[in-house]
């Protein structure tokens, strides 16, 4: 699990009643979203989970969420592509990638960079 911002991502913290507790969760695996949702909700977060990245994007608005948890490998739209679309709409939102892939830091940086470059064009 790698995150580019983990200020608000505290599994063990309870009673996060401040406003920064809205989470967008996107993963094509239903069991994963269910598990994450249950776990995060137990910790006081408000979680909106999607198994379809297109669906997640269609309802996305500026300031809807404080954090987005996104899987890399998804059908129709992969994590990078979703990140790019989300960034277009909301420049402030913090994004955390979640994957079961064994990806090493250098490899990820490369992948991330190339996908970002591709998205900026």
């Amino acid at each position, binding site marked *: 699990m790698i995150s580019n911002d983990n200020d608000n991502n505290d599994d063990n913290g309870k009673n996060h009643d401040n406003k920064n507790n809205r989470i967008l969760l996107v993963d*094509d*695996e*239903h*069991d*994963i979203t*269910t*598990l994450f949702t*249950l*776990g995060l909700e*137990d910790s006081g977060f408000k979680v909106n989970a999607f198994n379809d990245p297109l669906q997640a994007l269609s309802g996305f608005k500026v300031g809807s969420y404080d954090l987005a948890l996104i899987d890399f*490998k998804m*059908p*129709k739209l992969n994590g990078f592509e979703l990140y790019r679309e989300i960034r277009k709409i909301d420049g402030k939102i913090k994004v955390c990638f979640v*994957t*079961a*892939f*064994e990806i090493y830091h250098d490899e990820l940086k490369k992948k991330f960079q190339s996908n970002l470059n591709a998205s900026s064009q």
Partner: protein
Amino acid sequence: MSYTQKNLRISKTNIVILSVIAAVVLGISIFAYQYLTSTSHRIVDIASEEVRSNTRIEAHDISQIFTNKLQIVGALLQTLSESPAIHNNEYKRADIVVDTRQHSSSDLTDFYMWLDKSGKINWISNINESTYKKYKGTDLSYRPYFTFPRDTHSVYYSNLIESNDKVPRLYISYPVINSTASSTGAGPHSGIFTGVVVASIRLETIGNFLKNQLFPQFNSTIGLLDRNGIILYATGAEQYVGQNVFGNKFQSTLSSLLHPPDSKNLLNGLIGKSLQGNTGSGDILINGKMNTIAYQPVVANGKPFLILYITAQHNVASDVSALIGQQQYFTILVVTIIGLVALIVAFLVFSWNKRLETIVKARTRELNIANDTLAESNKQLARANEQLKIHDKMQNEFINIASHEMKTPTQAILGYSKLIERHPDKSNEMMQAISRNAMRLQRLTSDILDVSRIESRALRLNLERFDLNQVISDAVEDYRNGIDKSNSDVKLFHEGKNISLQVEADKNRLAQVISNLLSNAVKFTKEGSIRIKAEKDDGKALVSVKDTGQGIDAEIRPRLFTKFVAKSDTGTGTGLGLFISKSIIEAHGGKIWAENNESYDGKMGGATFTFIIPLSVPKEPM
């Protein structure tokens, strides 16, 4: 063997070179032969010329000496004829003066005679009183040596005369003229004839004299004829003395002696010329050997008296010629041997070259082959390397994806296990989820094991004879139940279910394939139908699964049967099913393929997956 035969074959260039050598050798031989021939001719000419000139010189010299000798005799006769004792018929005094003359020229003359005016012997030199009495008064008036001086008052040189004593002789006679006793005429020859003085020369003496005159270093013979062609002397041929050279006897001897026959005519012509008083020489082949014959008249009293012949063989010339002939053969032999050696050396060099060339060619060929082999193995290595890289990459990707596929259900199981305590109200649901993910893990594990077996070529088939259609029926039955539960809009048909498809195959594996194809069809088909069809085609079992689903993505289609490509988004597949199915069908000696159906009513027509495997050979009734 073929190797040496190759060596013996000589190229065109080499033939040209060998020919040139042969031609050069031939040329040198011909040149040497010609040169030696011309040299020999020149040497022979020089030698012959030497012989000719020597012969002529000898003939001339001996003739001169002989002439001088005869003139001396003539002079002695003249002084005798003018002697007062003779004039005055003083016998006692006369015998002394006659004897004196004989004494003076005894190396040539035999004796001197004094005849009186009637031709009777007055006196003969060197005889005693008794012999004198016997000869005195002998009448010799018939002899030309008496008549000629008497009639002409001049000196006389006789031809060959056989004397009364049967000895062949020549005579020189001088008239005795008493000029004081008479006054009837004037001049030197006028006067009264009172007798003749005669000198007698034996032929034998002439022969010995002439023989002694021959040049000792010069190998020649001598001959002498008188003006009538009578042989007076011939070296080594004394038996012919007294014969005429043109007489039958001598001519027949010549015929047997002279070869070729032309030589006789030449010789006769030469003798004819010489008898006319000429000087000269000629070359005549005698018994195959060249001889020069020089002739020279012996002049007496201004007239040719006798003819002298000198004959010399061209010994040096013929010896030189023979030597040079030998030299010619020797030279040609040497040149030929050198030529042969050159040819052999050239031939050896060519053979050696050829052999070297062959070896070099063979080596070059071997090197080329080695190079090619090396290049080929390099290529193969590069290919293998490339494959290894690809394989490596695929392996990494496989591990990556596999780990992802395994971690997801594992995480789900672990997560639910943790949360199940906190959420007892959802425990049922969670238990189901745990079970579902565990099954998913099991499927994945099984598929990964299959893939490992396939990739390590350890996939084994348990062959048995069965009806493939029965397996299809069972699978259809299972899935019909599944569809009925989840999606009632999809109908599943089994076509050709009465056909018997006897195969010798792995039943479980083929069931796995059919199940995989059906599950894929079910997964991607939301409405319409799924038709599984069994048929026989050219000794093969053909099974197709046709759906009305979303069809195969064009991007995926080329890699459809590879690992982790065609993963459904429903989350139930492993992404390995089609890869495993393909491997199973190919292991059975069959083929599997997929195609999209024709679209209809603006909708996608779905996809059809088909495989064929060989039918089993029907068993012959025993």
